């Protein structure tokens, strides 16, 4: 994936309030689908998926009072394009709880080709055998290359392949916002 050097903002998909509402809705849907918070755990994909997982877990804590564990998964070592992307950057997996027989809600910011999630499924299963894995994403932008679908979606956004979806979060980028960007030279 040779990315163009510069992108410019094309449109805003979610503002701060809409992003927060989307996460609140996902939190409720997770509780509804699983009949409560029993056996639930969260695993976020580095980097922004972890932050989103923490926010969803906080919302569930506010709704039904349980503090669910949140882990961080780095899938660099499981990528199918390792070696095609230059120097591998390993940021470390940190899941300080057992996922065996738990329902793991995997959280990522943007679902695109599905290859990241494919790698994440392999990585998770190497850490134990969960009872089930569910997928929550803030934005589903389409263009799947693998048979993978999300269980919880903040917003479905039709995009073209040359565009890019940028999820900006307070903790990393100083603002809560999701935008579509397009290559500068276009």
């Amino acid at each position, binding site marked *: 994936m040779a990315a163009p050097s510069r992108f410019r903002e094309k449109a805003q998909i979610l503002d701060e309030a809409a992003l927060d509402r989307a996460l609140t809705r996902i939190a409720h849907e997770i509780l509804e689908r699983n009949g409560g918070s029993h056996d639930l755990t969260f695993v976020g994909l580095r980097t922004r998926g972890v932050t989103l997982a923490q926010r969803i877990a906080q919302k569930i804590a506010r709704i039904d009072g349980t503090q669910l564990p949140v882990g961080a998964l780095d899938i660099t070592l499981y990528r199918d394009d390792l*070696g*095609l*992307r230059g*120097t591998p950057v*390993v940021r*470390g997996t940190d899941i300080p709880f057992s996922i065996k027989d738990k329902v793991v809600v995997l959280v990522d910011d943007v679902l695109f080709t599905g290859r990241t999630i494919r790698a994440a499924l392999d990585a998770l299963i190497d850490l134990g055998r969960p009872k089930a894995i569910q997928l929550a994403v803030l934005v589903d932008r389409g263009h799947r290359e693998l048979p993978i679908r999300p269980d919880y979606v903040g917003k479905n956004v039709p995009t073209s392949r040359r565009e890019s979806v940028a999820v900006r979060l307070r903790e990393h980028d100083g603002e809560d916002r999701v935008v579509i960007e397009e290559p500068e030279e276009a």
Partner: protein
Amino acid sequence: MPWTRKDLLTIRELDPAEITLLLDTAASLEEIAGREIKKVPALRGKTVVNLFYEASTRTRTSFEIAGKWLSADVVNFSAAGSSVAKGESLIDTAKNIAAMSPDVVVVRHPSAGAAALLARELRCSVVNAGDGAHEHPTQALLDLLTIRDRKGHLEGLHVAIVGDVAHSRVARSNIHGMRKLGMTVTVAGPPTLIPPFVQELGVKVRYRLEDAIADADVIMMLRLQRERMEHGLIPSVREYARYWGLTLERLRAHARPDVLIMHPGPVNRGIELAPEVADGPYSVILDQVARGVAVRMAVLLLLAGARGAEGA
């Protein structure tokens, strides 16, 4: 910070950002040792050849485990019982191994420069696992990682390296790495075992153990190689142990209470290191060995995992 080198031959040639990249990558890989299934698919289909012309337990096993945890196929070759015993030269052996298309060759050899020679001859990556009295880069990296994990940082720390500095590739690699990362280094040992002009590497020299360890955050004891005595460099092992052995009494009397004791192994118990120090609370010797696997995984991953990028 991209990794661009084909080989890892010395610490001397690395810049501080490259050393930090290796340490950060290794730190991220440490958790794999605690997993139930200690295997990730990163180097699936890659082949690592361990080419060892000198005895080694720790280093060879460490590279082998590192390769296997990353799913590479690891082949061990030791000079004893091989065609080397029939007189084959290093380059001939290496070219034959290269004809089998490995991705990484890890080499240990008694001659300084052997790894660099192979790196020039072979298209695959070469890792120096110790070449004579020259360098042992992965040992220095695992020492630095152990110190960083224990102390939280490296810059500004003071390290005393004690013993046979002249013949130590571990000392040389560590001195280069520590100086590049802003650490202070003091070397100490009998004058016959301190290399001339060592000050030019930016280190202080002391000729008494007590002076060297007084304000050290880390004491790195080197292995006394007994053959040095035969060459007349020290009068006797007993005398060496008396003046240069780190005992609990000396440690308590002269060292800081939060000092770390390190040793690259294998330890001569009762000579350079008293058993109660080697096994005591200050000692991080087994930490070093554990970090060694993470460091070697990082080296193999950056060399074999990044290189496909050239064609992309």
